[in-house]
């Protein structure tokens, strides 16, 4: 095996230099030699050069072939390791001088010479200033190792593999393919019993859980049992602020402040002092994202603590057990035809929206601070 004592360098004969431009006939000889060695299997770009030179240097071609053959034989007279070294160096020389397609040439030569190599370069102060700025910014940028990001991608794919409708069949059947909308009915917003896939999806991350409104409901049930619903309530309120109309923003901001942030508020959330200070100051001039910092903080609190407790809780375990696992459909072509004919327009979105609003009203009423006087009078009347 070849071992060098120290890293070997290119021999001076093959050093790139402006003085000796690499001649076409030299290149032709090299290509002919390579042709002999590779028994006609040149790289495509080399073959293209070869054909071109065969045409243009046709008058010299006999000489080129003769010289190539002689050089080949002379090269064989060297000891094998030296021959390898020579071949490598020659190859490197020609890759630099005649670079393959779509590679950047290391030589800056010819008419497009950008730098005059014989002049002394005086770098001006402004260039240094810019260089410093560039390097400072480059250092400050947060970097992620590709191994880390690829690992994350890998993990994501592994987790979501079975839930992707392109990669895994959706149960019971894909409505777009079979014209049977059981899948949609089973995965509606307001549902007693969700499907198993849906429930599994909630366990992936808090974000998934909260994005699915049915999951959010389940989470709310759990939180009520734990008496720690104010974090989620604040988060929802912040979402409403973000997505709401511009006119309602000031009023919403006020309500949120009174309910969650004011000292001694009924549903006071526990966020750190700095964020609280920033948020309260921002509320003087409320805008859509004034609660962004606090919302993120609350989200992180829930994610790090409550979420995992939820996954281990009896609430979640029960819903997992109850969840449906529909059988996959197996329609014959005739049945598919029938399905196609019996397509229905589905539930009107207005109805769904009305249902949503009714639910929200109920929830608001349930969580409203208890009016003691009214309660007492009710009890009195009952008596």
């Amino acid at each position, binding site marked *: 095996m070849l071992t060098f004592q120290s890293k070997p360098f290119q021999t001076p*004969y093959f050093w790139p230099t402006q003085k000796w431009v690499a001649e076409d006939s030299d290149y032709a000889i090299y290509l002919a030699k390579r042709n002999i060695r590779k028994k*006609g299997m040149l790289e495509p770009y080399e073959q293209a050069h070869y*054909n071109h030179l065969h045409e243009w240097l046709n008058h010299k071609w006999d000489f080129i072939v003769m010289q190539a053959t002689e*050089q080949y*034989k002379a090269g064989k007279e*060297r000891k094998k390791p030296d021959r390898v070294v020579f071949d490598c160096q020659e190859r490197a020389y020609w890759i630099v001088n005649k670079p393959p397609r779509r590679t950047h040439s290391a030589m800056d030569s010819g008419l497009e010479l950008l730098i005059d190599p014989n002049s002394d370069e005086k770098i001006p102060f402004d260039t240094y200033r810019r260089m410093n700025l560039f390097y400072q910014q480059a250092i400050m940028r947060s970097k992620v190792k590709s191994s880390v990001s690829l690992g994350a991608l890998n993990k994501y794919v592994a987790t979501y593999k079975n839930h992707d409708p392109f990669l895994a069949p959706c149960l019971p059947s894909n409505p777009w393919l079979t014209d049977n909308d059981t899948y949609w009915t089973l995965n509606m917003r307001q549902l007693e019993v969700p499907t198993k896939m849906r429930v599994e999806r909630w366990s992936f991350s808090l974000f998934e859980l909260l994005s699915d409104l049915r999951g959010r409901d389940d989470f709310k049930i759990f939180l009520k049992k734990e008496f720690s619903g104010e974090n989620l309530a604040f988060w929802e309120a912040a979402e409403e602020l973000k997505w709401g109309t511009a006119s309602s923003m000031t009023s919403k901001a006020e309500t949120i402040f009174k309910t969650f942030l004011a000292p001694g508020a009924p549903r006071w959330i526990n966020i750190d002092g700095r964020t609280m200070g920033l948020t309260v100051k921002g509320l003087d001039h409320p805008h859509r994202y004034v609660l962004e910092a606090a919302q993120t903080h609350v989200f992180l609190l829930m994610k790090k603590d409550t979420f995992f407790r939820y996954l281990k809780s009896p609430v979640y375990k029960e819903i997992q057990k109850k969840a449906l696992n529909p059988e996959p459909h197996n329609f014959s072509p005739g049945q598919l035809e029938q399905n196609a004919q019996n397509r229905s327009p589905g539930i009107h979105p207005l109805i769904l929206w009305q249902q949503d609003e009714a639910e929200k009203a109920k929830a608001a009423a349930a969580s409203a601070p208890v009016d003691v006087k009214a309660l007492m009078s009710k009890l009195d009347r009952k008596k």
Partner: protein
Amino acid sequence: MTSRWRRSVGELALRGRQRGECERAQEALGRVTSCFQQLAVSLGSSADGSFLRDEMDETRHLAQRICRGLSRRLLRLLSDCGPAPSIVEDKQVSDCGPAPSGVEDRQVSERLWVLFLSALEHFLSDLRKAYNLIGRFPLTQRNDRRSLVNTGCMDGVVAVAARVASVQAPWLTMEEEQSPDLTNHIAELEAMLSEMQLRVPVAFWSVEATQLAGAECGGLEGLEEGEDSLEELMEGEGGSRRPACCCLTCV
């Protein structure tokens, strides 16, 4: 008429022999110059030394002898041939027998001419490079050896030198002339080149190759089994064979 025919046949036969001599000399020149290149490649490397430089001198003296002889003979050949023969002469010659026509004769000589001039130019550029490198790495003093570059070459030029020694030029025994040093050698060759180009007008582009593209592949007998492993050896050291940006770290 008969005597003229006999004379022209005789002339053609002589020219044929002379051409053969030139062809053999051309081959010898090719061998010597390629060996010279192999030696020149080691200049400035750790294999450089007085032995190498002596061998290089020997090699180029031999090349010089061949060049001088070839240039003289070719000049004679092409000046004797005269400019392209007129149609009248041509017909006369071809009427008289199966001897090759003057035009063909001329074409072959021109081909040799072009080959020699190409070889001369090629050798000259190698000589100039060698001159430059010797100037950069003079080995006149002991500690000059420190400037030599480690190219990973072990000494292997002995066999190359032997190859040079095996070359036989047809007129070596006859002529014994001065062996110039490198500078004068280059000057002499440059002068030879320009003289030849001025004396005989030859249209380079009218010469055609006798070999088809790719014909050289089949020529050589049985390449040894080690050939493919040579590429593997080259690949094995440095990872990817063809870097996306070409830098000189192929080895």
